[in-house]
């Protein structure tokens, strides 16, 4: 299969994740277990022989969901509740959630009421990351999740199977990280939307199937080279639970930028960290949970000895990015809390950034385009001034 065909397959799954789940179920007959973002150990479900998939924001208009959550909630929570109310999530045999965000908790409550026949499994991960008991509590939570999964699926999740799933998931993450490196180094011309398709389909597809496709893609793109020279190199930041709309990503690149790195959840954040495949797998998963936040800090967690703003500045230096666009999902409270820290740090370091607030509903792209074009002009001038050879 050629590069375009592979990318097309990733795109199809990313565009219709529930359709993929239905097909997978028809092909395999096994249960499908959905999960809320962002810290779901899919390895555990995979080891039990089920398909883990991360529930995605749908692209259609929210209708009946308006009767369950107020309009001042983020697009992901409103869309998830809307999908549940419309019956779209019926393909899921169970839904797991364990995050801390108050809007996600509200959505989970509403989903449980809408889907009385679907098991909604809750495991609340500790969100305070540097307490002496954080590791132990995270492990305890994963153990509780494992016990409930085993009970629900009526089959044990043995340690060897879990370690095998961890190795497979690690391989999947490693290949995507390799693709990221190629893109940062200018050795592939994959667009931001194509990168999103790769990551988003990984959240949905059978991992072995997805990994096989990734192996092929890696071979294909290593043969090519990035033709996009002279463009403004950008880092994209933010957007946690939901994927940014592809029309925004495309618009940014059409304005004369190339995205060379990101910390989006539907991006590098998702694949940043591997799980130790040796030893006790629950220890490995608990360690992974902690390591992810030191690797790519997340404002949904609190960790006083880790700074997201410092991470972003380092990432931009590593990626040789000229500027950063912050994509903030409207009403995302953790992001709103942390943003002033990022803003202050970037101003202090004289690093340009632009904040774009995104919405589930359609956005006025033309107005945004003007802002992005202006921003890119500023970035170009600043970059030229910094790199100019003194007379």
């Amino acid at each position, binding site marked *: 299969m050629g590069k375009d065909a592979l990318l097309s397959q990733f795109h199809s799954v990313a565009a219709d994740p529930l359709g993929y789940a239905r097909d997978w179920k028809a092909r395999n007959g096994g249960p499908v277990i959905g999960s809320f973002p962002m810290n779901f150990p899919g390895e555990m479900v995979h080891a039990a022989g089920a398909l883990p998939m991360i529930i995605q924001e749908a692209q259609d208009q929210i209708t009946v969901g308006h009767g369950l959550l107020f309009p*001042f*909630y983020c697009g992901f929570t409103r869309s998830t509740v809307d999908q549940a109310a419309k019956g779209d999530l019926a393909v899921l045999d169970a839904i797991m959630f364990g995050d801390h965000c*108050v809007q996600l*908790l509200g959505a989970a*409550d509403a989903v449980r*009421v809408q889907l009385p026949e679907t098991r909604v499994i809750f495991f*609340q991960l500790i969100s305070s990351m540097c307490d002496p*008991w954080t590791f132990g*509590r995270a492990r305890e939570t994963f153990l509780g999740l494992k016990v409930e999964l085993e009970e629900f699926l009526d089959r044990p999740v043995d340690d060897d199977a879990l370690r095998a799933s961890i190795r497979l998931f690690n391989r999947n993450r490693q290949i995507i990280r390799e693709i990221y490196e190629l893109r940062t180094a200018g050795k592939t011309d994959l667009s931001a939307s194509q990168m999103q398709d790769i990551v988003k389909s990984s959240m949905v597809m059978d991992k072995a199937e997805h990994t096989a496709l990734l192996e092929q893609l890696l071979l294909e793109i290593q043969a090519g080279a990035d033709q996009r020279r002279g463009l403004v190199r950008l880092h994209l930041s933010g957007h946690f639970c939901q994927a940014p709309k592809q029309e925004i990503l495309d618009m940014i690149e059409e304005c004369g930028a190339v995205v060379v790195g990101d910390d989006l959840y539907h991006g590098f954040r998702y694949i940043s960290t591997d799980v130790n495949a040796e030893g006790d797998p629950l220890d490995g998963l608990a360690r992974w949970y902690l390591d992810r936040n030191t690797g790519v800090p997340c404002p949904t967690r609190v960790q006083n000895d880790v700074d997201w703003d410092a991470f972003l500045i380092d990432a931009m230096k590593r990626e040789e990015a000229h500027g950063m666009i912050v994509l903030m999902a409207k009403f995302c409270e953790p992001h709103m809390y*942390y943003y002033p820290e990022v803003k202050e740090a970037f101003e202090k370091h004289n690093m340009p950034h632009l904040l774009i607030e995104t919405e589930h509903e359609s956005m006025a792209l033309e107005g945004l385009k003007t802002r992005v074009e202006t921003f890119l002009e500023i970035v170009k001038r600043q970059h030229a001034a910094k790199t100019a050879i003194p007379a």
Partner: protein
Amino acid sequence: MNLVTSQPKVANKLKSTRMAGKLVNEYWDMVFRAKEEGKLVCWYEGSAINPFLEAADICWVHGEAYSAMLAARHQEGPAQQAAEERGYMKELCSYARTHLGCAVTNQRNRNDADTGVTNVPDDDDLAAKLPAPDMIISAYAYCSTGQQWDEMTSRLFGKKIPIFNVSIPWIWASKKDAGYIRGQEWDETSKYVERQLYDMVKFIEERTGKPYPWDRLRELMGNVKRASELRLEAMDMCTARPAPASFFDWVVSIAPINNLPAGPEIVEYFQAVRDEVAGRVAAGEGAVPREKYRLFFDGIMNWNKVGWLAEKFARYDAAVIAGRYTHMAFWQEPDLIDARDPVLGMGQNYLICPNNHSSPILVDLIMDLCRKYEVDGMVIHASRTCRAFTNPQFLIADAASKRLGIQTTMFEGDVTDESFYKDELVNSRVEAMLEAIDARRMAAA
């Protein structure tokens, strides 16, 4: 139609609650003097950990209480503006924005002082008057905002202030034995919180450099327990017709049970409230002189509008009798507190924040209150920036309609940001609900 004009007041507020204003003023004066008196200051939000601090002679500042006080005095503007200038967006919890605005103001003044610019806040500038923290303790049930707000406070002060986090899990209640304050999940979660509270005490000892005075905590918790019992007894008497006190009287009484010094004064306060309520029941005196409707208030308080809303409903002859905010929180289960060994019971009361049980339990509790107080309708305040309270509101409205057959109405407002409140919408929606109640009564007759 604006019903709140310069006409004589209709709402018959409890006279005893006037004492609350005096106690509140004395408490904040104590806070403002704390640094001069050489006291350590701890900022915290959410759970009422203040007895732990008070026992150790640490001055406590409850973020929501300060923000609410500013809003009730219509002095929240400068703090909210300072927060906005730093980049905190309007859609963030306005309690947090207001309190963070105080931190921003404090840091600005300190930085100005460093540069030699004299910037002594004037006495009326309450955003600047709040003493900076020497420690932060985060112990927030249910809402992720609490923990993030504390973390950002710590960062605003350059991460130089020690911070301690107590994690309080949500009660999901999916196990077969799950229920209100019972079942395996409840027991395990209670123990988990208790363990962390003991670690929190070690953190306090490290800050004070002294052994923790457990006897003092026991004494304070004895007062809290008694005050809580009196408060609940008085609330129970409001099943009488007409209701002797209103939801708004209980709102005014939050500070004494939640964050004021836990000395004998709070017992005296609630004894006075209880006695006045009992006297009114005996005399047939109502909080609303011509009680025609009995309502339940779901949602957090709109602190800019306490008196305004009390008067508005009274003019409609509507007694707002009970609410999720007042009747399901604030040391709500005194029987769980063993004053001789109070830590577990304190943790359990923190777990009974009005939102910390998932909807099956939460909705049942609210329906029970509506039945108990025999309400005709429910007013739902959708507080724009308090998603902890708005999360289950559609489920609550649905249950009220289907299980109890009562009318509900919703209006949008906010805890401390007045700009989200639209008075005309409140009028038209409340009037529509009351007319629907009338129509039902006529049909039933």
